[in-house]
């Protein structure tokens, strides 16, 4: 089995699905000749030709809208937006149309498109290149939000997203693109959307994380009897897995790199408060970025949650 990084695993998933299904087309800025700004689509233009891999003009709203029209027509477009921060100009298309088309047309049309976009901080990139505003997209009924945390799940989740009948926002943690290598089977496999994964079993505290924070959490919890859940899909999220783990451990720490207020951790905390409060032996704690704009490189280490903050939260709930 080959050791692949996340870029290679995603590339393999795209390539395999394009070979299997002629409805799958790629479009985006620089996805063709250049292979994408992170080279995720490298080689696909050469393999599938200009009809299947479209280098578009620089217009995020326009290409998001075009992908919606393609999906409604019966294709399965995969749109790359170069950075999550550039989806903001396409937000109306995603919110008002992609997520609502099935509902608004009462099932006459559907919108099976995948929007892939790198997200998250810590890559020394310019402004708006390191956003982690995933929660904004989780309040859009009709849109699924998926965040892989490594090469293996990235391939399986992307194949599942590509076969999903509804629109999926696929957030690729940029910091992990080439950081981790894992064994990735050459053959196709699906990682089911909407299911969390126990990344590390434990019994005294549950830690929920996703995306690039998972790697940081797994390092931080060494020496603790912590159960780490990798959420993988934020909407719909696997509340059952979280409740089940909290019922066992009685303690919950949520770690995300987005700002705290109305971050996705709030939804998880509220759900556990509603459904499992009597199992809790300590307050639910969130380890998050502060409520400030994502800074540039010189301040990013003061912004992103670090191992010490995670361990401090663990100590707090364990000693409560």
């Amino acid at each position, binding site marked *: 089995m080959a050791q692949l990084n996340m870029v290679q695993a995603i590339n393999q998933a795209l390539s395999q699905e394009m070979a299997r299904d002629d409805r799958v*087309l790629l479009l985006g800025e620089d996805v063709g000749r250049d292979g994408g700004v992170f080279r995720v689509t490298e080689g696909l233009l050469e393999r599938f030709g200009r*009809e299947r891999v*479209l280098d*578009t*003009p620089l*217009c995020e*709203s*326009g*290409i*998001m*809208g*075009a*992908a*919606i*029209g*393609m*999906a*409604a*027509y*019966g*294709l399965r*477009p995969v749109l790359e937006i170069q950075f999550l921060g550039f989806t903001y*100009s396409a937000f*109306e*298309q995603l919110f*008002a*149309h992609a997520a609502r*088309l*099935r*509902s*608004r*047309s*009462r*099932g*006459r*049309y*559907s919108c099976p498109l995948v929007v892939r976009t790198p997200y998250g901080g810590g890559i020394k990139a310019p402004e708006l290149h390191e956003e982690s505003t995933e929660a904004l997209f989780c309040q859009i*009924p*009709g849109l*699924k939000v998926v965040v892989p945390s490594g090469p293996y799940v990235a391939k399986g989740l992307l194949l599942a997203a590509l076969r*999903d*009948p*509804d629109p999926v926002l696929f957030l690729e943690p940029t910091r992990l693109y080439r950081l981790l290598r894992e064994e990735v089977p050459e053959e196709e496999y699906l990682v089911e959307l*909407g299911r969390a994964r126990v990344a590390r079993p434990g019994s005294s505290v549950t830690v929920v994380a996703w995306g690039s924070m998972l790697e940081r959490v797994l390092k931080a919890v060494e020496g603790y009897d912590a159960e780490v859940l990798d959420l993988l899909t934020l*909407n*719909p999220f696997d*509340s*059952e897995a979280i409740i089940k783990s909290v019922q066992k451990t009685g303690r919950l720490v949520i770690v995300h790199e987005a700002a705290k207020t109305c971050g996705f951790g709030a939804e998880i905390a509220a759900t556990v408060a509603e459904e499992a409060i009597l199992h809790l032996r300590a307050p639910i704690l969130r380890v998050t970025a502060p409520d400030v704009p994502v800074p540039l490189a010189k301040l990013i280490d003061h912004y992103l949650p670090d191992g010490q903050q995670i361990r401090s939260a663990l100590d707090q709930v364990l000693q409560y």
Partner: protein
Amino acid sequence: MPEVLLAEYQIKRLEVLNEKGEADPELLPDLSEAQMWRLYELMLLARIFDERAVALQREGRIGTYPPIRGQEAAQVGSAFALTQKDWLFPSFREMGAHLTLGYPIPQLLQYWGGDERAQKVPPELNIFPFCVAVGSQIPHAAGAALAARYRRDPVAVVTYFGDGATSKGDFHEAMNLAGVFNLPLVFICQNNQWAISIPLKGQTASATLAQKAVAYGFEGVQVDGNDVFAVYRATRQAVEKARNGAGPTFIECLTYRMADHTTADDAGRYRSSEEVSFWAARDPILRLERFLEGRGLWSPEKREEVAAQATAIVDAGVAAMEASAPPAAGELFDEVLATLSPRQAGQRKVR
């Protein structure tokens, strides 16, 4: 070094039928008398439907409604050049196009009555749901045109929007995509000269809207939007061009919104009655009647007959709309996703 002239452009305006109802025989489209009469029936149907919808809103039987009065030629004439296989991406003020393509009248009224089930477009039509967010439907048409070409389908993709939409980014992004990819796409702008209270000159400094196409590298033409033959002729040419792979066209139908923006608006606050009267005298239906009369086809009695038929059709539509049972609470959840999440399924169960 001398300055070099890099480009020059011309914008043409197409007129076939003048206000007296006299047609230019060279430009008159190749339509049978039966087809011309059908155009008349559809325009009158659109007018009577529209008047009824406004009345229904006033009576509290439907919700806010955006009248199409004055735009019948621009809508019927353009949609008459389409087939049911073509893809249509409307805004929200093109009910004349829907009626021309055979969209069920009860569903049109049901939508404005606040019932989303009305947007389930019949399977024989490829019409997208009404789009309320101005101009945001235009990129969808670009995507459908890309898909149609990928599938080698000999269809045209048409999108409707108003003058206000030409100020929006999505319009420009879609126009640019159409030019870059040479898409089989027809942009039909209903320039009714008012976007709620903002007149055309508050929307653009361009002399015409048609010229905007020039910047994107394809043909733009202005037509007299109250001249059903001009609209039909220009649309038919553009649609054939699209089907033949010869690229996009922008058609500006210069017309006039004779009524308020919606039933919730009072246009008297921002425009003069003289202006409205000026355009009322240029009513597109009146002009077609004069033409048909000159051909010995039309008389006031014939109008009464056509109006009576249209009224009966609309009456039946209103009755069917009002006879339909209101949606059940479970409809909130239907079709939100192919498969509801466990949380959504739980929320549905308790409603």
